[in-house]
């Protein structure tokens, strides 16, 4: 017996399994990052230092660039899904490829940011602001890496599914997209909170 | 009920109120448990298969349980608003003025209670962690004029009878919990924070300070002593301590 509603939506609930699954997963991710943002607020309130000065050492232009890169990747992610909806597999490949490139770009820029900090002997142990900065951005970075792995799979070997079950494949890309937008969204919160405020 | 529960002696002015709340709660618990217990036993006997071979599809039609639930809720509200909240407010908000009270600092460490009295001048001298060593576990800075007459003891807390005591609790290393079972006092000692508690001892004699929070391998033996004395005895004790400085 096949498992129902893997592709088609169930009438009375209006979703398919994977769609519901990813939303639930994202809800738990909201709780994860929510806890970290709460931690940030509590530490900042309780801190003797003025965090709006502590974060002057961060590189705002680089982070702005990174924001642009990540938002672009979200756009190309949508485009790749839209291409599948229009049954254009070639374009899908292109846009998905661009998404992956952007994600790598993000990580590379992040790498430069990190190494600049380490060069100046700024470590997580230096102060609580840097501790939370490194923790949150590293955890976000891990999510980016997770996204790269998933997207690369769907770009490469996983895309074979297009030939056999195009609808299911399109669903998968949509779901990968939801995850990717979430990762993007987290960064959009992280950027002002860590760099600007 | 109070004897029945086996609570320790009531050593402070507010202890009785806390016990009263505990006793009332246990009355509620007993009533619920016995009430439901009788019903439960009766049902098990009356409706066992041998006695009642065919079950009744509808079962109970009574609304008793809804009323009961409302009663439970009301009793809980009464205990909450009538007893617990005011009692707690009294504990944490209504500190007596420091001039009318005896003020002590207690600093916990693995695995001892350091007690710091201000001495004759009534002022606490500076403490500096860089001065901490085995002779001076509190790190009292004896060069500070306020500190010259300060008295420090380890695991011994003396307090005068019938005079409010305010104790500032802190910790040098990990979390401990300052517990005076006889006084119905309990406050975690949290590193980085200084938290006051207050009470008025009403029972003279010796009792204990327990550590109620796991603080490492010596947690079980982190015990201090508390002595409640008349004012004269207490002053004499303080003088004796001051003399040995």
């Amino acid at each position, binding site marked *: 017996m096949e498992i129902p509603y893997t592709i088609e939506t169930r009438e009375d609930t209006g979703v398919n*399994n994977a769609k519901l699954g990813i939303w*639930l997963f994202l809800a738990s991710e909201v709780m994860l990052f929510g806890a970290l943002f709460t931690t940030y607020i509590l530490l900042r309130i309780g801190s003797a230092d003025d965090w709006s000065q502590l974060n002057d050492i961060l590189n705002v232009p680089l982070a702005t660039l990174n924001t642009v890169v990540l938002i672009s990747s979200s756009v190309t992610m949508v485009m790749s899904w839209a291409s599948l909806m229009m049954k254009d597999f070639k374009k899908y490949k292109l846009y998905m490829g661009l998404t992956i490139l952007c994600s790598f770009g993000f990580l590379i820029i992040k790498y430069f940011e990190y190494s600049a900090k380490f060069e100046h002997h700024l470590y997580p142990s230096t102060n609580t602001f840097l501790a939370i900065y490194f923790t949150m951005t590293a955890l976000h970075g891990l999510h980016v890496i997770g996204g790269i792995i998933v997207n690369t799979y769907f770009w490469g070997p996983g895309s074979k599914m297009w030939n056999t079950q195009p609808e299911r494949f399109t669903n998968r890309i949509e779901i990968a997209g939801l995850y990717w937008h979430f990762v993007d969204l987290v960064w959009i919160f992280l950027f002002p909170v860590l760099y600007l405020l | 009920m109070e004897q029945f529960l086996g609570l320790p002696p009531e050593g402070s002015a507010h202890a009785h109120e806390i016990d009263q709340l505990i006793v009332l709660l246990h009355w509620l618990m007993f009533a619920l448990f016995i009430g439901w217990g009788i019903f439960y036993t009766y049902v098990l006997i009356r409706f066992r298969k041998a006695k009642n071979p065919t079950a009744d599809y509808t079962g109970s039609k009574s609304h008793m349980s809804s009323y009961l639930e409302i009663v439970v809720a009301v009793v809980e*509200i009464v205990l909450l608003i009538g007893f617990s909240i005011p009692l707690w407010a009294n504990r*944490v908000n209504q500190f007596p003025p420091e001039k009318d009270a005896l003020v002590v600092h207690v600093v916990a460490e693995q695995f001892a209670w350091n007690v710091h009295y201000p001495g004759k001048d009534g002022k606490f001298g500076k403490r500096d962690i860089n001065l901490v060593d085995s002779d001076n576990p509190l790190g009292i800075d004896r060069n500070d004029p306020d500190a010259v007459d300060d008295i420090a003891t380890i695991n011994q807390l003396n307090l005068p009878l019938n005079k409010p005591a305010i104790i500032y609790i802190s910790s*040098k290393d990990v979390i401990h919990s300052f517990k005076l079972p006889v006084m119905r006092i309990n406050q975690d000692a*949290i590193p980085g924070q200084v938290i006051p508690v207050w009470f008025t001892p009403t029972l003279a004699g010796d009792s204990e300070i*327990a550590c109620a929070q796991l603080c490492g391998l010596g947690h079980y033996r982190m015990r201090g002593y508390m002595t409640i004395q008349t004012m004269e005895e207490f002053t004499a004790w303080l003088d004796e301590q001051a003399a040995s400085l």
Partner: protein
Amino acid sequence: MQPNTKSVAQHHDVHQSEHHELSFWRKYVFSTDHKIIGIQYGITALMFLLLGFMFMMIMRWQLAYPGAAFPMYFFIAPIALMGVVVLFITGIKPSVNTVAGLSLVAMAALIWYLGSSDENFPDGIMLPEFYNQMGAMHGTIMVFLGVVPLAVGAFGNYVMPLQIGAPDMAFPKLNMMSYWVYFMGGVTMLISFFVPGGAANSGWTSYPPLSNIATTGQTIWLLGMVFLISSSLLGSVNFIVTIVQLRAKGLSFMRLPFFVWAQFVTSFLLLLAFPPLEAAGVLQLMDRLAGTSFFMPSGLVVSGQILPNTGGGTPLLWQHLFWFLAHPEVYVLILPAMGIISEIIANNTRKPLWGYKSLVYAAIFLGFMSFIVWAHHMFMTGMGSTISAFFQTTTMIISIPSVIILSALIISLWGGSIRFNTPMLFALAFLPMFGIGGLTGLPLGLSSSDIHLHDTYYVIGHFHYVVAPGTIFALFAGIYFWFPKATGRKMNETLGKIHFWGSFVCMNFIFFPMLIQGLAGVSRRLYDGGEQYAHAQSVLYLNEVMSVAAWVMALFQIFFIVNFFRSIKKGEKVSDNAWEATTLDWSATTSPPLAHGNFDTVPEVHRGPYEYSVPGQKNDFTPQHQKA
């Protein structure tokens, strides 16, 4: 369990007939079938439960006879012996019994390793360091590796899809992954016994700064927790999607068996409460490994040395994050238990549950409320009057749905035709035992009475009444009840009843004295059981009573273990619907054929879950799928 006998049979005809049969490994080890995964979870969790119990019995030795030499072989021999017996029930054929027997022997070896080490027992006498390790690991193992995997991973996985008429879980591969991630978490926790300094020793609550400065075991504990949390997250997503999406035709939400509702609410708790602990775990790992100070202020002096950390953090942050998980977690421990109890009570009173709707709404409400009561574990951290008033109020509010659930279950007995079989005995005992546990939560929930009771044995007594004669009894009840579904055989009733009465009496001799000690003010987590304290003297004799009761209870568990493994092979054969029940799980063929779906025909539901003794019907049970 059936698989063993089946595997042998099937191996023979595989050659003749179907060639695309799954290999042994894919079928029983890396299976994606929810029933196999359920059994894997079940066996693993039972083993951990037993290990947690062993640790506790070792601790109870020290509590009863502080400073006396530890009679190690006394504790090891029964376990090792039982392992050998279980191994020989099936001989050398690969089977569940083999796995279980070997695990029991391994457990004995682990305890031998720990017991013969001079670092733990110089001259045969337990050190406080080791006592603290046992305490932390008892709590961790019982909660995260024993009860939750058994209640959710095993019962949820095995029973829930059958009860909703689904072919499997919505994401079978994810399901398999969640088991193996859980398994990895368990292995990680076990590894921590072998690192220098031994396992984690800062309590299951792992409060910093103590845990920050603890030995390496704490780091491994945190890694293990990350595994366990991830496993729960995978599982809970899967459960929710399955319940929402794969319900059979006609099975509306208000026709779900209460067990499914309980799993549903539980999954939401796991999904939303665990991530903050994961965050906290990451922060503590950073503190331990990268030298940050999330949970540490500056200027700490530990054994005469000033700690080098920069400070800026606060220990209370951990407590908030931890209890934000751990309070909902306790309802994760109790809700599935309530679900199991409801099924068994309806079945054995032969009538519908009383107030089904109120049960459901109460469970949902309980789920919501459990997110806003966490700080009742922190009343003594210097809480002001407003915040404490808030948390006391929410705590009192959350007690009401529990009262509603319990009342509904007791009233359900009224008018029944009560059969006293083993599952029912455990289920019936659950009610007053949970009653004691729940009621003793009330004095803890008011901050003023908590002043006297916080961190005393009263707390230990409170929650053990809920989790041990509460949840553990429910789990026993569930095992006796669904055993026929998984194996086609019933467990022996006589052995079951001995097991029940022995456990019931012993449980009360273990946990009631704790309440007495707690009222006298005896603190928890004391290596010598309070021997030093004057205020403990009058209740000190109870330590020996509790310990002896714990050991005697262990002896009664032998009846269960023997019954369990013997019945797999030799139990009385029964029909698919062994208890004449109404829910869909009982309309599936027993131990349904693997990887071919659960039901011969796609089930359709026509009525509510507990249509027993419907007036005018021939039978006293009307299955959900039976047409009007």
